[in-house]
């Protein structure tokens, strides 16, 4: 069962037929995430979109939620086979450093914690090549996944911290996390 929004705004559940897999996508109303939701649905997944922005009338079953709200996340993640966590402020947004950190790190830790509690096995997390910092200060190229991560912004630093915590959760609780260090998305 995947959580969904009932007409009265409360979180309910949306049945999906086994063996079709249910995926929750956070940040589902962002430009990238709309493509991800559409692509996953085209691939046969039952997808529940979660975003801080209220869903349109056509986005039946999607949920408005700040993922720093762990209690509601718990209802929504229960029964999902995987989570795609792309919900965060973008790098060029004008939020304060404190808001950026709270959004990325605290929101991300909530997602990790609820993944563990609800028994979801697989999590995909959007990170950033901004975790590598200033490319021109690298001592060797190309930049691989093993290159030094020396972020030069709160955005990059927050993504790097979330990666570290995700790796710890994998060790502690046996979950699987794939982190995607993406460049600018167009």
């Amino acid at each position, binding site marked *: 069962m995947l959580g969904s929004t009932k007409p009265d705004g409360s979180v309910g559940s949306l049945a999906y037929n086994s063996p079709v*897999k249910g*995926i929750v996508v956070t940040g589902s109303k962002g*430009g*990238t995430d*709309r*493509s*991800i939701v*559409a*692509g*996953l649905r085209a*691939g046969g*997944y039952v997808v529940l979109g979660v975003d801080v922005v209220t869903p349109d009338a056509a986005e039946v079953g999607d949920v408005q939620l700040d993922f720093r709200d762990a209690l509601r996340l718990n209802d929504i993640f229960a029964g999902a*086979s*995987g989570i*795609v966590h792309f919900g965060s402020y973008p790098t060029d947004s004008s939020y304060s450093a404190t808001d950026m950190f709270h959004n990325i790190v605290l929101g991300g830790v909530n997602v990790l914690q609820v993944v563990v509690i609800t028994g979801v096995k*697989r999590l*995909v997390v959007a*990170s950033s*090549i901004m975790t*590598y910092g200033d*490319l*021109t200060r*690298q*001592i*060797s*190229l*190309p*930049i*691989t*996944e093993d290159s030094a991560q020396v972020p030069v912004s709160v955005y990059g630093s927050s993504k790097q911290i979330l*990666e570290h915590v*995700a*790796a710890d959760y*994998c*060790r502690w609780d*046996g979950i*699987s*996390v*794939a*982190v*995607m*260090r*993406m*460049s*600018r*998305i*167009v």
Partner: protein
Amino acid sequence: MEIEKHTESGCLALSVLRSYVVALDVAGACQALPESVSDGFEAFNFVAKKICIDISVADLLQYYCPQITNILNPHGTHQTPVDSSKLRRGLGWKAHYDWKELRNEYQKSVK
């Protein structure tokens, strides 16, 4: 459009060496990832191969970053110095979209 300003030449070029990735290509990888990820923690770089400028990467690096002498693999003239081969090897993923096509579509749409 975002891609438009990244195709400008000059000093802006260095900041875009990190390249870009197209949202639809991200969606393609996300279809494969939930099923394919191995146990534990894995990180993947995820960028399109081609940089979105018309200047050679080697020329840019030589001019702006002469201190970087340890370049392990010779780059294609317009390929990003961020290596996404792990994602391609692991998931069989490849980019299906190209910035020049996106730019051309955009330019057509605003005419």
